[in-house]
Structure formats: structure tokens, C-alpha cells
């Protein structure tokens, strides 16, 4: 039965994570914005606190996910609880959330597809994810990094850019092709330990926002890793099944990015509301929008869009918790949240006037931070492509 009133449990999670974010992240947000590339050592305490879901148990061989096993009222699904937590953490600081130890994108991939033995070896490592290359961004199926089996070792070559947590991580999940002719089916992911010979962190980027998060380039030159560092199964699946499997993890991670946009936008909205109310304007949600100031009306519209972003995001997460296929809804949430997170943070700066331009406050930072949410994990346009193909029932050939 439809019920969109958050449960007590949801409110509790929100409140406790908000406390954490308020106490731990907000106070150091500006510090690491200014000291790009410096490791936020304050985050070490988070090694023992799981925020990003994680800890997902590997499914037993042949075990079907139980369809009718819906979380009961009191229970809260992992995905929903994670998006709620991420919103709060990013309300504190998004760059810092992305720098939480052992919570990289690579960790999500390992949690999803690693073998028992790989869980043992890498489960407690901080894992980054390296897909993007200089010549391969949105079209991740076109990557050119190679992996060649030589005896008991894979030999990797190529260049990976824009790797989040490049400096701080312990291992990197690297995408490479083992068979160029096989196209997407030949793409596999490999766990590369940072200290492997031939694996070099070339540089760290200087960015518009999320400066607390390090982003770097790796060069692989005849980098040798053990055969069993290939993540998951080695066989080249006939069709593009393997690649699709990897892409499917995006259905779970896109709502997470959407909730990051949500957290930043809410931070901006909360701060703007505070300033509006300090100035003596009472936001009472009553008068016909034609009879209020344009500032109030614009602010209300931002709030309405923020709520819409959240509901779309929560829906995608809720579906994942209930084992419903959410490819469309996941992309909807990111398309909406990526775009409107950007617009909301921009608008808040405008409504704040000079307070929105000065570094004395965080509003200007939120506008910079938010922009990435419409870029990584599939740009806004890519999300629109996915949504459009879904609703039009068009293949990627019919809509390129």
C-alpha cells in the first residue's frame, strides 16, 4: 500500500547520520576544500562505521533472490537506508563522503561479484574503480586498456584517468579488455594492488569542487597481477552478458549519486532558508504564489524540486530493496537529481546575493561540489538516454 510518510526507523537513521555529519564533516568541510590532496585524517574513525551500505554477503551458488521477501514495516532495506544516510553525509560534505575509507566504488564492485577467496583477500581493502580512459568516457564499452594472460599472471597495459580515491586507496578495480574482437563481452575487471610493479599513480587532478576527494591518473605498463585477481569469472560470455552485469551495478549506484546531489542541494536550501528567515520573511506555505515575493516563490520551487528528487531517489532504492528491476527508475533519479542539484545550488547562491559568492560561507562550495553529480556515474545526458530508451522501448541502435 502506498505510504510515503517516512517510518520512525527512517527518521532515526536520518537523525543519527545527520548528527555525525554535523559534528564530523561540516566543521572540516572548508579545510579540505582549501587543502586539496591532503588526506582528511579525521575520517579514520569511519573505518569502523559502515555508511555506504556495503558488507553485502555474496550470494550462495544457485540461490535465487526471494521475491516475496519484502522488508517489514520496522525493518529498513539496505538501499533505502543507504540513500538516506548518504543524503545526510553529503549535507555535511560530499567530498569527504567520497573519501570515506574502504567505501570506494571498487568496494561496491567487489562486494557484488567477488569470489569467496577474493572476499577474503580484498574485503577489507580500500578499493577504487578505474574505468575511464583519456579516449573513453561515457562510452565505457570502448576502453582500450588490455589484459593478456601470461602463464599464471595477467599483464595489464593502458592509462586510467579520473580515478576517485586514487591516492588513498589500497587496490584499484581496473577495467581492461581480454579480447578486443569480443567487444564489450571482452571487458573484465581486475584487482590491482597499488604496490604492483608497472602500476603508477601519475598525477592528481585540481578540480572545480569535491576537492576533499582525490582524483588521479594511473598508468599501467606491463603490470603483472596474479591470475586470480580477475574479479569474478574469467570466461568471455557469448553475448554482452558480462558487461551487462557490470552495468547492472550502476542501477544500484546511481541512486547513491542522486542522494549525494540531494544532500548538497539540501545543505544549500537549509542555509538559504535560515538567511531568508533571519531577514524577517516568514515562509508559511499558504499564500497564492502570485502574492508573494519572487524570492519566496523561487525558494518554494527549489524546495518542491528537492522533494521530487528525493522521492524519485527513494523509489529507485526501495525497488532495489524489494528485488524489483529498477534500471529506468535509477536513471530517472540521477537525471533529475544531477540536473536539479546543480540548478538548486546555483539558485541558492543567487538568492543569497553576496553571501552566495563569498568563501566565508559554504554556499559557493556547494555550487561547485554539486556539479560533479551530473557528470560521474553516467552524465545527465547518458541518464536521459537510458530513460528515453526505456520509455520508448528503443534499442541503443534505434536511439544513439
Amino acid at each position, binding site marked *: *500500500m*502506498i*505510504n*510515503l*510518510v*517516512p*517510518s*520512525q526507523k*527512517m527518521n532515526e537513521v536520518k537523525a543519527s547520520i545527520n548528527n555525525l555529519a554535523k559534528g564530523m564533516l561540516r566543521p572540516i568541510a572548508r579545510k579540505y576544500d582549501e587543502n586539496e590532496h591532503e588526506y582528511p585524517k579525521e575520517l579514520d574513525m569511519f573505518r569502523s562505521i559502515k555508511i555506504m551500505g556495503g558488507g553485502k554477503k555474496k550470494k550462495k551458488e544457485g540461490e535465487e533472490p526471494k521475491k516475496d521477501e*519484502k522488508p*517489514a*514495516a*520496522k525493518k529498513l532495506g539496505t538501499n*533505502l537506508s543507504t540513500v538516506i544516510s548518504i543524503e545526510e553525509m553529503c549535507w555535511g560534505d560530499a567530498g569527504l563522503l567520497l573519501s570515506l575509507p574502504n567505501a570506494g566504488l571498487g568496494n561496491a564492485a567487489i562486494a557484488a561479484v567477488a569470489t569467496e577467496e577474493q572476499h577474503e583477500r580484498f574485503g577489507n581493502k580500500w578499493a577504487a574503480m578505474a574505468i575511464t580512459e583519456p579516449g573513453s568516457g561515457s562510452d565505457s564499452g570502448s576502453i582500450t586498456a588490455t589484459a593478456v594472460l601470461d602463464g599464471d599472471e595477467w599483464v595489464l597495459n593502458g592509462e586510467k584517468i579520473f580515478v576517485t580515491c586514487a591516492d588513498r586507496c589500497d587496490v584499484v578495480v581496473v577495467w581492461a579488455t581480454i579480447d578486443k574482437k569480443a567487444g564489450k563481452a571482452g571487458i573484465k575487471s581486475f584487482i590491482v594492488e597499488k604496490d604492483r610493479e608497472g602500476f603508477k599513480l601519475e598525477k592528481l587532478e585540481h578540480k572545480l569542487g569535491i576537492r576533499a576527494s582525490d582524483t588521479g591518473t594511473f598508468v599501467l605498463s606491463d603490470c603483472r597481477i596474479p591470475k586470480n585477481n580477475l574479479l569474478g569469472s574469467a570466461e568471455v560470455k557469448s553475448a554482452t552478458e558480462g558487461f551487462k552485469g557490470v552495468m547492472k551495478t550502476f542501477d544500484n549506484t546511481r541512486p547513491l549519486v542522486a542522494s549525494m546531489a540531494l544532500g548538497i542541494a539540501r545543505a544549500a536550501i537549509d542555509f538559504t532558508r535560515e538567511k531568508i528567515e533571519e531577514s524577517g520573511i516568514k515562509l508559511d*506555505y*499558504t*499564500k*497564492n*504564489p*502570485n*502574492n508573494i515575493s519572487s524570492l519566496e*516563490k523561487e525558494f*518554494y*520551487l527549489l*524546495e*518542491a*524540486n528537492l*522533494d*521530487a*528528487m528525493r*522521492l*524519485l531517489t*527513494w*523509489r529507485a532504492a*526501495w*525497488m532495489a530493496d*524489494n528485488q524489483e528491476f529498477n534500471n529506468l*527508475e535509477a536513471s*530517472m533519479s540521477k*537525471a*533529475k537529481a544531477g540536473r536539479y542539484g546543480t540548478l538548486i545550488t546555483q539558485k541558492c547562491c543567487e538568492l543569497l546575493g553576496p553571501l552566495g559568492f563569498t568563501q566565508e560561507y559554504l554556499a559557493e562550495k556547494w555550487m561547485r561540489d554539486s556539479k560533479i553529480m551530473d557528470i560521474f556515474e553516467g552524465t545527465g*545526458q547518458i*541518464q*536521459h*538516454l537510458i*530513460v*528515453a*530508451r526505456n*520509455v*520508448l522501448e*528503443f534499442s541503443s541502435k*534505434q*536511439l*544513439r
Partner: protein
Amino acid sequence: MEEREFSFGLSEEQRTMKETVARLIKDVVADNAHDMDEKKAIPADFIQKVWELGATISVIPEDFGGYGMDYSPIMNAIILEELAYGDMALAVASTLPSMFLYPILEMGTDDQKKKYLPLYCDATFKPCTIAINEPRFRFDPVSMETKAEKKGGSYVINGKKCFVPMAKDAGHMLVAADVSGKPSLFIVAKDNPGVKLGEREKNLGIYALESYPVTFENCEVPAADMLGGDNGCNFEAFLQKTRTGLCAIGTGVSRASFEYARDYSKERVQFGEPIASRQSVAFMIAEMAYEVDGMRLLTWKAASMLEAGMDAKRESYLAKLFAGDMTMKITDYGVQVLGGHGYVRDHPVERFYRNGRGIAILEGMATV
């Protein structure tokens, strides 16, 4: 009270109702919406068929002639969206009695309930209506120019209302008027000599729905007919429900425009391929898709709060603001995707565009 599970899923009952209304709309409206609009009339049997669903009177207690079922703002939102998906004029017309009956049911005195509810709990649809909107610049339901003044045992209402649906045939209307700074509602019989009906209005949209301007000239009503009695009613609560109702209608109209444009863009070939194969068109379709969903979820959120007995002032207000804005954007896209063909009345998108303008402008046209 046991906490209800947080859920985006329709219950069996909700799904069945949604499908039932959808089927009815398909059978009844089908291709008639265009004709209704052109002829500026809704055939009485269409309204009767929707009435026979029993949604309006189902929640009225058996003592007053209803079925005494649980009142559910969410269910009402689901029904309204489906009706408006078929036709906005029909959606407003066929649920008009709810606009009159629900406020009485929720906020009326015992005498008011006894007197008025049974009148309309009938197997046959009997029009009754509501007069809220006023024909003036900067109209605002929270500060009305229509005034009611207490004189002895009566109230005397003076002022002008517009867009009063089906006023000509309605037996009663609920009239919103200001009583010394406080918005209030009055139950007014249509044959009250102080009620003056104007000529049927010609509007931008919802052509099929008859509507009238109504002038109140020293219209005297017994004090007992002020909704809620001496203390008046909770006008704020009333607004929350009507605003949420309009959002459900906006969702239905928007979805109709989205689906029509989506299907058309797959069929229409230019430059050797369906126009939907071009991103500039496809991305509009994508945007329409998630904004429709966003609007529905905001509506359901407000309705969920109302259903839980919570104050939904903020949520219903924001939902209506969003719905007003987005319905315009979506129905505009609908016309744009069809190009010149969207501008001529052969396709429904032009009607959706005209109708959609009402969501932001109108107040009190539907309720959950």
C-alpha cells in the same frame, strides 16, 4: 496505531481500483474527449458511469446513505489521476460532489451532515458545486474579497465568484467567503434569491465543463449553514486536500500528454527515421517521463500525510506549485514534440496544453 510500512507499491486494492477506473475511462472516454471538447459538453451518461464507481459516496457513513468505507486520500489521488488522464473536464465534473460533500463530512456539524449528505448519496449523479475562485487580479484563497457578515441569526454574503462548475444544475454550493478576516465556507442553496448566475463562461481550457460566474448580492444564509457551525471550519485543512486533488489531476493530464507524445514520436518519420531516434526529441520524452513521476510522488506524499492525519500544509503547497509549473512544461513539450500537428485540434496535445494551465491557476476544483 500500528505504523504503516513505508512503500512505493500499490496494494491489491489500490491496483484494482486504478485498473477499474482506467478501464472505465477507456470504455467511456476513448475517442470522445475530443468531441466533448468541441461540443463543449459532457454527456450525462458519462458522468453517471463514473458516479456508479461509487468512489465519492463510498466513504460516507451508512447512516447518511453512503457505504461507510475507509476514507483514503491516496486512493482518491489514484482515482483522480486516472480520470484526468482520460479527460480533465470529466474528472472535475464527476467528482464535483466530493468537493461539496467531503468538507461537510469532515468539518460539518451533525445537523449539517444529517441534512445535506443524504441529499447527494444517490444512485444518480446529482450536481452540487463549490464557489471559491474570484474574477480578479491576485486572487488568493486565503484572503477573499467575498465577505460574509453576521446579521442576527444569519450571514449575509456579498461578492463575486467565477469558475463555478455546473452551477446551473447544482442544488447546493459550498461558498468560500471571508468572515472578519477568516476564510470560511457556507452551504448555500442554489435557489437562494441572493445567488445570481451569469452567462456560461468561455475559458481557455476544459471546454466540456460548464462553468458560471456567480454573484452574491446580500445573499442571506442561516447561521446554521456556516460549515462547522459557530466556530467555522478548518479552511487550511480544506485547502490541503483540494490542492493535493489538483496535483493528482495535473499528473493525469501530464501523463496523457507524455504518453501521446511518446507514441507519436516513435511513429513519426522525418529524415528517414522516427523523430524519437533524435536525442533532442528523445530527451524531452525522458524529461516528461520523470517529471510526471515526480509530480505523482509529490502528490502521493501529501496524500500519505493526509491519510496519516498529519498536517500536510507544506507538502500540499509545494506539490501544487510543482504540479502547476510542471504540467505547463510537460504539456508544452507535448505540443512541441508533435510540431505543427500538435497545434491543430486533431491531436489531443493542444487540449492538454490548454487544460493544463488550470492546475496552477485554479483552486478548489478537486479534493482527495
